[in-house]
């Protein structure tokens, strides 16, 4: 069923134009900036001018000469110079970028699979008959919507090494570079495992009971049931969750910002965090745009890999 009245454009176009104006245009502008070296500096000039009184007349010294004062002029000068692919070349040899890529890659490759696996295990558990199941399920939903920045600061107090609630473990959660990255991963796992759990549970509960019974009658073990029946049937759901988690994990910014400030040193400085610092703290705008574009292209490649699946889902 599809109508083709012209009114369809009236419905659709405002949203399309909005996205073009506020997403596609900035992205184009960002690409343009990536080819420039942009420097902002404040130029200071001093000038001696006579002091004026309220009537605008120069104030005279006892010697009869006008009294003079120094006036400082500050002007922000932004210069931009076309540098071609220089910003992209800089990326390749920049040790900060290499570290940020390593941090982000470890984070994504550990956190996302753990969240999916743990989420699946919890979903299988909660698909059983349990005491107070609806209430427990509700509790599990809470972390998903907690403000990520607040979560970062909150875990800062939980990981407090002298006297925090986990202090008895004696683990240097935030002061040791490797543990700090582990802590960032742990926070993400706390926040996003519930998301995977919830989606998988919904999908499991949508499966007909007869299916499980039939498999049982055929003598399937629990493991068989999981690997031959449940996982294949859940495959579309798993792929969507994987895509959403991958895309989201690559954006990592709020939690390290609050929890570790990217440290110790640069041990938890994620790629987005570095691009933010370079562009909006050091105002090396061209270079930061080039960095951001590399991330954008990475995400685009991932989405493209999932494109056929998406077309089936939204067909």
């Amino acid at each position, binding site marked *: 069923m599809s109508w083709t009245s012209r009114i369809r454009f009236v419905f659709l176009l405002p*949203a399309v134009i909005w996205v073009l104006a506020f*997403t596609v245009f900035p992205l184009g502008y960002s690409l343009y900036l990536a080819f420039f070296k942009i420097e902002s500096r404040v130029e200071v000039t001093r000038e001696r001018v006579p002091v004026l009184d309220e009537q605008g007349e120069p104030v005279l010294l006892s010697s009869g000469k006008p009294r003079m004062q120094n006036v400082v002029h500050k002007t922000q000068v932004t210069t931009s110079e076309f540098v071609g692919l220089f910003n992209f070349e800089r990326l390749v040899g920049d040790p900060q970028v290499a570290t940020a890529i390593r941090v982000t890659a470890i984070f994504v490759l550990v956190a996302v699979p753990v969240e999916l696996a743990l989420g699946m295990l919890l979903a299988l558990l909660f698909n059983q008959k349990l005491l107070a199941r609806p209430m427990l399920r509700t509790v599990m939903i809470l972390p998903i*919507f907690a403000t990520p920045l607040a979560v970062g600061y909150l875990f800062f107090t939980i990981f407090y090494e002298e006297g925090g609630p986990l202090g008895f473990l004696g683990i240097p959660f935030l002061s040791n570079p490797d543990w700090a990255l582990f802590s960032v991963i742990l926070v993400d796992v706390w926040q996003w495992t519930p998301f995977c759990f919830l989606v998988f549970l919904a999908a499991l509960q949508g499966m007909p009971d007869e299916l499980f019974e039939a498999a049982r009658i055929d003598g399937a073990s629990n493991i068989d049931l999981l690997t031959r029946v449940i996982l294949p049937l859940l495959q579309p759901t798993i792929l969507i969750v994987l895509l959403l988690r991958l895309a989201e994990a690559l954006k990592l910014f709020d939690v390290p910002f609050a929890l570790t400030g990217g440290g110790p040193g640069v041990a938890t400085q994620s790629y987005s965090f570095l691009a*933010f610092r370079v562009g909006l703290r050091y105002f090396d705008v061209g270079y930061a745009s080039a960095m951001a574009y590399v991330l954008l292209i990475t995400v685009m490649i991932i989405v493209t890999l999932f494109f056929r699946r998406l077309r089936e889902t*939204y067909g």
Partner: protein
Amino acid sequence: MRYAVLSLIAIVIAMIFLFPFYWALSTSLRNPIETFTVAGLGIPWVDFQPTFDNWISQLATAESRRAMANSTTIAISASVLALILGTPAAYALARFGFRRIPNRDITIWFLSQRVLPPVATVIPFYLVMRTLGLLDTHLALILINATFVLPFVVVIVRQTFLDLPVELEEAAFVDGAGHFTSFWRIALPLAMPAIAATGLIMFAFAWNEFLFAITIASQEAITIPVQMAGAVDTRGVQFWFMAVRAMIAMVPPVLIALLAQRFIVRGLTLGAVKG
């Protein structure tokens, strides 16, 4: 037996996931000095005498009140704006056929906006807002948050319209109603519960946004997360106030999660999985 063991495991796991919230509440009720000295689980009345002093002094500051007012204004305006723009587009993609580009590809185009790394748009957006003189304004943050949640609205609400029976609209159409009337009078009221739930989830997303807020807002337009980050910068880590601010930040979106519970799975998977 199996039931008891599994239930126990599930309860322990739920407790672990609940613990950080409990810890925030417990810390927020302690005297500053006790935030460092109370060991173990910090149970109120057992390990320390709870007090609301931190809450009272935190809520009394003009900065906190401004941050709360700003977060509320920005999140509501952005969600409403996104619903106004997104709902008709969702209807168009659910009911009409677009020939040049298939509907599903337009839908995926909207969806793909959602997975874009925001750090790629934050720099140009900052420069544009600086040029327009809109730095540190509500308007800039409303525009950007509406942009962020718009793809969600389009994709989720489209699914809602697809799930509605088309016959009602066709019947209205036969009776001489135009497309706009059948959208406004029939489809929209039927989809309203789902649209309202979508709006709630969008509010939570906008409320939680931080990267653009810290970039655009410096004083007048600060949101709660920006205020949290600023307080740590200027006054160091004060666990007792941090816990209060974390609670203030987290409670509204978490309550929304409870309210829109039935709708969350669909909302978070952009309609791909029905909860």
